[in-house]
């Protein structure tokens, strides 16, 4: 009985399986968060505040999308701004050439932005996913810069550094940000649902196997190239949608703001801060960091200060909580639960054998200290493999 009790708090699971709170807590928290996000602009209709909300939604979509590929497969991409930019240009070009009026119709272009990105990502991904680790990271950046150069140089299509101007929405005043916010929220929910499905599907299991050990995953019969490519295309889709939302909101598209290296940094930072490879990590990271960033920007009006703040924060997170906030907190919580269950067990059977019942996998709270944070951290031999 005591064994099952401990197992129910997740202590009997191997250490690399992250602890998950009970289903009721997870679903309740998700629903509560959703209600809060829906109510937010109604409670604070001030346009300054709601525009922060819109930016948060844009980054939320991008972060969830980025995490589907980079978080779940372990291939870190710092070049997803390529799709952010393609999404922006897709929406802007269609709107201009089809002479669309500003307004609700532009939101109909979001799936198009996503699809164009997904289609573009397939040959790119096929090329990039031939290499791993640092070479992969570096090549993703190179691809992003190729697109930036193309946007600067294909002046007949993109108007180069002059940029493109979007048709202006018909809404005004306090209502202006509302449609963008709610459409963004809807897209974020769709992205979250996609991530949730991947996380618990057999397909997602293949993705995690690739993250843990690609050779072994291949040996087990997982079609690694196809699996990675699908995740890459899916993440490109959502980042493209985020770009497609950004363009009509800001009203213009420029090469350096579409294919923006700081966008890459921001997305990576907020997913790392929240917890890479988790479902709630990107959400937490985006909801905390983006409002903070926007606030700093409005307060000090200086882009450099938050560049410095972001860099310092990123270094601190990498140093102190390499797995991010979510795994760090849940593992500490698991440690607490285990300690409490163990105390109860010892009280129940004073002559008992302590933790013997949980077998070799019984991990005490000391095993889940600050070191055991991310799922990949506990992988045996992870350190040596880097040299291989």
């Amino acid at each position, binding site marked *: 009985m005591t064994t099952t009790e401990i197992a129910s708090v997740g202590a009997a699971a191997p250490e690399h399986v992250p602890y998950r709170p009970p289903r009721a807590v997870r679903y309740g928290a998700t629903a509560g968060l959703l209600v809060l996000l829906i109510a937010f602009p109604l409670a604070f209709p001030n346009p300054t505040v709601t525009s922060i909300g819109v930016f948060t939604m844009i980054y939320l979509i991008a972060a969830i999308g980025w995490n589907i590929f980079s978080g779940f497969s372990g291939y*870190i991409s*710092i070049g997803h701004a390529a799709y952010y930019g393609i999404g922006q240009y897709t929406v802007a070009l269609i709107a201009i050439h089809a002479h669309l009026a500003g307004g609700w119709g532009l939101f109909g272009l979001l799936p198009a932005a996503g699809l164009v990105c997904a289609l573009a990502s397939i040959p790119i991904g096929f*090329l990039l*996913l*031939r*290499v*791993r*680790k*640092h*070479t992969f*990271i*570096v*090549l993703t*950046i*190179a*691809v992003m*810069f*190729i697109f930036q*150069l*193309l946007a*600067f*140089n294909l002046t007949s299509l993109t108007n180069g550094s002059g940029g493109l101007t979007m048709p202006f929405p018909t809404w005004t005043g306090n209502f202006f940000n509302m449609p963008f916010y709610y459409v963004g929220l809807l897209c974020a929910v769709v992205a979250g649902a996609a991530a949730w499905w991947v996380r618990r599907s057999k397909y997602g299991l293949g993705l995690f196997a690739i993250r843990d050990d*690609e050779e072994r995953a291949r040996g087990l019969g997982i079609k*690694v*190239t196809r699996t*990675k490519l699908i995740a890459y295309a899916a993440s490109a889709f959502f980042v493209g949608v985020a770009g497609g939302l950004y363009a009509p909101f800001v009203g213009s598209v420029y090469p350096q703001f579409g294919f923006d*290296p700081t966008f890459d*940094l921001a997305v*990576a*930072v907020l997913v*790392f801060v929240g917890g890479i490879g988790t479902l709630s990590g990107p959400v937490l990271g985006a909801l905390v960091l983006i409002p903070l960033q926007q606030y700093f920007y409005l307060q000090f009006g*200086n*882009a*450099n*200060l938050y*560049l*410095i703040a*972001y*860099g*310092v924060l*990123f*270094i601190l997170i*990498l*140093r102190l909580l*390499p797995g991010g906030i979510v795994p760090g907190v849940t593992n500490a919580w698991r440690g607490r639960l285990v300690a409490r269950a163990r105390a109860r067990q010892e009280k129940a059977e004073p002559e008992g054998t302590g933790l013997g019942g949980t077998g070799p996998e019984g991990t005490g709270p000391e095993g889940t200290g600050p070191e055991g944070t991310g799922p*990949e*951290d506990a992988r045996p031999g*992870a*350190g040596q493999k*880097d*040299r291989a």
Partner: protein
Amino acid sequence: MLILQAIIDGILIGGFYALMAAGLTLVFGVMEIVNFAQGILVVLGAYLSYALYSHLHIDPFVGLLITLPAMFVVGVVIYWTMIKPIKRDRVIMSLLTMFAVGTVIEGILDLIFTSNLVQTTTSYVNSSVQIGSLIFPVIYLLSFAMAVVLLGALYWLLYRTRFGRNLRATTQNPTAARMVGIDVDRISAFTLGIGVSLAAAGGMVFGSTNSFDAASSYDLISRLLAIVILGGFGSLSGALVASILMLVIEDVVAVVWSPTWGQTTFYLVLILVLLLRPQGLFGRTAVRAQ
């Protein structure tokens, strides 16, 4: 003749790119760290030379006597404070850490120097030597000579000194090097210091031949990484050959086609090479997935 001129320009410019790329590839060879901050460190070196020249009127080439040791210290400090504490997933964690370090430096440089473009305009920056119909800008000749001297010194350090032998041993196998009594941490710190100094030397030339601001670092780092990947991560001679090759290709394309496309071909060459030979031209081991 234009093409011959472009090839010569490419070789001369490739010389100082080789310096910066050598720093990057050397650091990778010793500790498997992709120094993503190399671009902004080049810009930092450029700003140091610029500040010395514009405020104290020290010639940038003479100023290297100050900037090189200063940047060496920067590299050593970065190693001990940023890289050494990383325990797990060194390759990716160090890349991300250096990315973050670069961002912090960029923000600070932007605060100090603002985002106005500057250039170290010495008296000889616009003078050139003409032989027949070929033009040799003096600054490129000087910088090429400096690159040859510094790279020669680097080769001497690596292949003729005890330190170099220890460094090469660490590159081959850090665990075994530690076992035979080599202080790997000290070697690593020194290597990062050397890599950063080389970035500063390259930055001095970059700042004299281009107008730059902190944001120039993105362009620089993507070029340098392309060069290092093409040459093969960790290969010093690969980096030298690839720098010259890439810059010649860029300059020739710029002359034959259009300057705006020069840099794009630069990346296209990179992707083409990686399709055919993922380990780069001189790479020892492939880092590939299939």
